[in-house]
Each structure stands twice: as C-alpha cells, then as structure tokens.
C-alpha cells in the first residue's frame, strides 16, 4: 500500500503532466516534470504546502527528485502515464533517463476527478497546475534555464554539488522561505498592497519567464 508521501508524489507527477497537457504541451519530457516539481517545492512556502523533497542536490542539469521518479515509474506501471522516446543520456558525470510522458486519459481522468472533489488535494493540484502552466508558457526546453534563473538555485552561497534546503528547521527559515519573503516584500512595495498566493506565484514565474526570454533574445 503506498504511503501518504508516495501518494502525494504520484499526485504531483500526474498533476504536472495534466497541467502541461492542458496547455497543449505533450508529450511531456520527464526532465520537465522534475523541473516543474522543483519549482513547486521552491514556491511551496507561498501556499503553505509541504515540499516533496526536503533537500536537493544542486547539479548541472535539472534537479532530479528520486521520490518523484519512483512515482513516475509507479504511474507508468499502473498505466496512468504512457512513456515514449525512452532513452538514456550519458554525460561525464551521470547517466540520465530521457523519456516523454503522456497521460492515459481513460485512467488518469478518474483519479483527477476524484482529487477535484477533495478541497485540500484540489488546492495543491491547482497550485501545481498553475506552476506547470507558467513553465509551459516559457516554451520547450526553457525549464532547465528557468531553474538556473531561480533565486534559490542561483544562490551564490550554494555552489554546484551542494545542498539546497527546502524545509525550515528549528529557529531558522529555509532558503526558499527567505527568498520568497524577500520577493513578497518587493512585490508588496511595488504593487502597494498584499498579493494573493496565486498572484505571487504568477508574478514569480512571470519574472523567471522574462529572465529566460531576455537570455534567449539575440
């Protein structure tokens, strides 16, 4: 029987793929699912949601979540996600799975409809879908660059192959909390009023989008 954490990870993966597909982006590269999940964790303090991963290793590519990968495998095994273009890319440092994922609507819709009926779960899935929609707007392949523009990821105090904290601890904020507190304060000053969690999420991803676009323009 899957644990609650397993179920949250499975729901996270399913919602991400569903979120991308609702913006007509499919099949969804598995790296994009990981990137999106990372952003969900990074923005989770805005929504007071527990992240899937409490610590992340800062790497050259999109950070991989082992828990999320297990969830993806499980969803494939149960026929909710259909893989295609499965391949393994080898770099000097590591070998990574490359695959595209498609939602098996016949099964997935039953799960997603059940989630919609639950207030707590639907709140989290709508947050995940909002993040997915924002990443999709950046265009194919932008997710990797977006990660590297993220304020947590680009924290100069955390070099490559070091740990990023996503969960607050006794007497101290997490890195993501600190970043988002600063971001909220800036936004409040700029807008002249307190912004909602949805507005802050949209504003943050929009900010990332503009940074990615600026980098891509000649």
């Amino acid at each position, binding site marked *: 029987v*899957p644990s609650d954490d397993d179920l949250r990870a499975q729901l996270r993966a399913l919602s991400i793929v569903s979120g991308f597909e609702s913006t007509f982006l499919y099949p969804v590269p598995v790296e994009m699912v990981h990137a999106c999940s990372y952003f969900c964790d990074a923005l989770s303090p805005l929504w007071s949601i527990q992240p899937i991963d409490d*610590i*992340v*290793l800062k*790497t050259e590519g999109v950070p*991989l979540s*082992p828990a999320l*990968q297990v969830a993806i*495998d*499980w969803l*494939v*095994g*149960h*026929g909710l996600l*259909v*893989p*295609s*273009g*499965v391949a*393994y890319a*080898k770099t000097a*440092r*590591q*070998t*990574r*799975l490359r*695959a595209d994922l498609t939602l098996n609507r016949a099964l997935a819709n039953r799960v997603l409809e059940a989630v919609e009926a639950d207030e707590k779960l639907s709140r989290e899935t709508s947050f995940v879908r909002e993040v997915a929609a924002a990443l999709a707007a950046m265009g194919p392949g932008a997710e990797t660059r977006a990660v590297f523009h993220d304020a947590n990821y680009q924290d100069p105090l955390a070099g490559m*192959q*070091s*740990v990023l904290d996503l969960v607050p601890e*006794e*007497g101290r904020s997490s890195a993501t909390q600190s970043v988002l507190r600063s971001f909220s304060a800036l936004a409040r000053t700029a807008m002249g009023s307190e912004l909602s969690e949805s507005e802050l999420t949209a504003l943050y991803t929009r900010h990332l989008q503009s940074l990615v676009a600026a980098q891509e323009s000649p």
Partner: protein
Amino acid sequence: VQFPILRRLAVHGYDLYPGTSEKPDLDATFLPGVTLIVGANGLGKSTLILVLYRLLTGPSEVAGDTGTSVLGSGQLTLRPFRDQEPRMFARRVADQAVDALAEVEFSLGDRYVQVSRKLSTLQLSTLTVDGKAVDVSEAAFQALIVEAAGVGHFVDWLLILRYITFFFEDRRSLVWDPTAQRRILKLLFTPPTQEDRIGEFEKRILSTDSRARNTRATLAAEERKLEQQEKALSTLPVQQAELEELLATREDSERESEELRERSAALDAVRADVRLTLLRAREHRTSLANELESIRFQQIRDAFPTSSETAAYLLTQILAEDKCSACGTQVPDFRAALEERLAVGDCVVCGSHISEPGDGAGATSADLAELQERLEVAEGAEREATANRDVTEAELRQCWGRLAELDQVVRAAETRIRRLELNMPQASRSQARREAIRDLRRQNEEEIAGVLRDKDELDRLVQAVNLQIAEYQGRVRAAFDGYAEDFLLDTCSLVWGSNVEQVGLLGKGISFSVFQIDMSGATTDAEVTRRASDGVSESQREFIDLAFRMALIQVAGTEGVGSLIMDAPESSLDAVFAPRAASVLTGFATPGSESRVIITSNLVDGRLIPTIAEQANIDGPDDPRVVNLFEIATPTRALDQLRDLYMEALRRAFSPEERPSAQ
C-alpha cells in the same frame, strides 16, 4: 478711622431708574439724619444700595469671601473682579447699561470725594477730591481711600463697608462672628503696622504649621514602611535560600545550554556533510541504476523490437531494480528468470526460444556483473549515508529539544529571581530608611518649634493689641448699652471677653479679645452670655448687631459720625419692635449730627416708616429725604396694574393719622 459720610448718589442713563420727564434719571441727596428709599418689590431698592456699595468698592472683592460664609481666620487679601462679575448691573437691563453712569459723593474726614463709574463695567469714569480731579485709576482710588479713611489696606475699607456701614439683606453679622469682630476691632483700634505684623505672623504660622503636618504625615508613612521592611527581614533566610537555588539552576541551565549550542553547531556542520554525502551517493546510485537500465532497456528492445515502450520500460525496471513497477513488489527470482531468457534469446513472457540473444548495447555479462556490483556498492553507500543522516538529525533534534526545555527553565528562573530581588528586604534599605526617618524627625521638630516660637510671638502681639483695644472697650459698651436699652426689653449688654482661635493646628490657641453679649431672657433673670446668635429672636439678633455697629462708629469714628445703610429693616420686626427700631435709627442720625442713615422700605403694613417719618420730620413722599422709586424706577407689571393700591400704601405710610402720636 474715618467712616464714610454719604452725601449724594446719582444714576444717569440706567434703564432701571429713568426718572420723570421733569426730573430725568435718579439724583438723591443724603441729608444729615434719615433718608428713606421707598418702592415696591422689583423697583430696584436693593440694586440701588448695591450701586452705592460698588461705587465705593470698585470692581474688587475680599478674596475667599463667598458672600454667605463667616469671615473666618487667615490673612485677607484683595482680588479683582473676574469673568462676569463686573457686569452685575449691565445684566439687569436690556441695553447692557452701555451709557449708564453712577456717581457718589461722600466725605472721609475732611476730604470730599466724588466718584463716578460706568455701570456697564464698574470702570472708574471720574474721580475728584475736594473738587480737584485726580488720576482716574483704581490704584489711585484705593490709595486715596486708604489714606483718607486711615486704614492699612484697601481690603480693610471693604471690611468696614461690609461689616459696619452696609446692612444688606444677607445680614452679615459682626457681633456674633468673633473672627470678623477681631479683625474689625484690630483695624479700628490699632495702627496698621501692628495689624500687618500680626498678619505676617499668622501667615508664617499657617505655612509652617501646614509644612510640619505634611512632614509628620510623611514621617508616619515612612515609619510604617520601615516596620514592614523590618518584618520582612525576618523572612529573609527563606527567600535567600530560594534565590540561591534559582541562581544555581539558572547558572547550570545556562552552562548546559551553552554546551548544547556548541554541540548543535558541531552537529549541524556534521549534518551538512552527511546530507551532502547522501545526496551525492543517491545521485551516484541513480546514475549507475540508469546506466544499468540503459543496457537492460537496449537488450529488451533488441530482443523485442516491436514491443511497446511501456512494456520495455517496465521490464527494464524489473531487470535493473528487481522491482515491479506495476505492483511495487520486489521480484529477484523473476528478474533472474528474465535475465536467463534474455541471455539465450527466449521470450521474456512465455520462455519460447525466438531469436539469437542481442549484444545488450555491446555490454558483456562481465560488464553487467561489474556494473551490478558497483550499483550494489553505491546502494550500500547510500544506505550508510542515509543512516548517518538519520542518526545525526536525531541527535540534532534531541539537542534542539533540550535547548528549548532549558530556555523555559532559564526564563522561569529569571522571572522568579526578578520578583524575589524586587521584594527582597535589604538591610541596607532599612538602614537608609532609618536615616531618612531620623532626618524627617529632626526637620519636624524644628518646624514644630518654629510654629510654637511664632505662636508665642503672635500671642504677645495679640495681647498687646487686646490691651490697646481694651482702652476703648468701656466706651463701646456704654454706647452699645445706650442703643440697646432703647430697643430691647431684655437686659442686654456687651461683655469684654476673649475668643480662642486656633491659628494652625499645632500648639495652643491664641486668645483674641472680643465683645460678647450678655442677655437675660424670658426664662431666667440671670444674665447669660450668648456666644452665638442661636436662641435670640431675629429682630433681637439684627438690632443687637446694628447697635454694636452704631457703638463702634460712635467710638472709633472721628467725631463719632458715619453712615448706616440698611436694606429692608422692617422685614424682621414685629409690630411692637418697629417703633423702637425707628427710635434707635433716628437716634443715631439726629439732624444735628453729620451721620446718615439710609433705609429702604417696600412699605409693608407696619409701624416703622410712619414712626421714622414722624421722628425725623419727614412730611411725605415728596420730601427731599425720600427717594421715591414709585416715580423714578421703571414700573413693574404689578405696579402698572395695581398702581392705585400702591399709591394708597405710600400715602398711608406718611399720613399723619398713621403716626404714633395720632394712635
């Protein structure tokens, strides 16, 4: 002392007294003897008396004099009018008395003074002395009065007017109020300098007395506190023991906290390492797993090029991780079987031989075995790193938990320590308080000694004053007896006695000499000293006081002359006493004397006015010694409607048939 001899009063432009077309306004000359001011209620008799009074006082009042209380002790000072007080006459008329002017002429000894004031504000308008205009200012007026009347201060002049000259409806008593009497006697019979000296002593005594009592109150409070402190000192050992225990607890806790903080900082650093180790181990294991998956996946694709990617993906998972992604079960035997089938080219589903085995992306079984071995090592490293992380984090959390507990302990101890220290009796504090009490006692003793010294001196001064006044007491008594026997049926005489006043609350009282009344009443022939006016009829009370005032004017006044102004004397007289009162009043101001008596009357049905008219030879309402407000004043509605009745009353008051001789 020179008492004022009032000679003339005129009021111009005041709507209350318009006068007649032939004789506009009000203009009354006060001839020697009696002048009657007659009028119905509401025609302004009392107002006219008040106008006369305020022309003489100006816009000043005795400070603290509420108009109803007895004079009491304490130094008297002058205070100027405030707020609406100067507008007392303006408020009575519709035009606010904007053009109204009142003037009075009076003598003070050989000085002839003319004063006019605006009735709207009581401001001085003109001031002449012996026909010469002088500086028009209140200061000049007051200085003039002080000098001409022979008093020490202008406030003395107000006292003379209030307690001797004017007998208002409030009937301010002099003979029955010993505190007022001793002031009046002092100012009438002693030099002003002596009076000032007594005033200074009184003021100093009251001030020091008040200070001494405050010090005594502070002293008592401090002594109470000291007593409490010393009582608390007896519980000191218990509190000290608790405090020491708390201090030790706090110290131990802080020391342990410090150690724990150091330990947690070290653990945190260790945890950062083990976390990083774990993540790297995990990354390495994932990478190796992916590498193995990559070979396995290729093997399956080689063996089953037409199989779905989902099937290949799932089989790869089984081959690489011994785990079935469909059901989550660990299936090492099934993996071994799959591996076997793939190695010989059998179908992975049913085991039938279908093809030659693929090369597995060029990987040999030795390669696979080595990769598998590396993966197992990586998995072991990850497990170890995970265990290390878990141990470190558990220890760290334990540290944090204990730190939180210790923080609570320290905070609770500090709160209790603060409270104990605050309330902890200290011998040094008691000592400081004892010293303060000693100082306060010394200060209080000095203050009390000062009061007693000053009181002795005051007593000496007052006795000297008493002796000076005593020189006149025989004459005052004789004069009083003369007036009293004309009026009273009871035996009534003045007694030269004393009244003890407590100046301040410390020390003995000061004995001031004053006159008291001895009377024999209906119930006893023995004379009884009446120190208060209780038990004396209203008419007796007033005419005893009147007789006393007359006696004082006769003795203290230069040439024994003065003025008496009495508002509605008949109001308290019964039918028998009215003729006697008339005799007393006319007897004071005989035509041969310069003294004046001014009486107001509303013509009640009595014997006073007819008797006065006969004794003073006043012919009728047109006599120059009658101020007829029925003609001069603005008529009231009652006068308009009942004029005939009022005129009949006026006629009868002066009618020869009403006079005692015709009865």
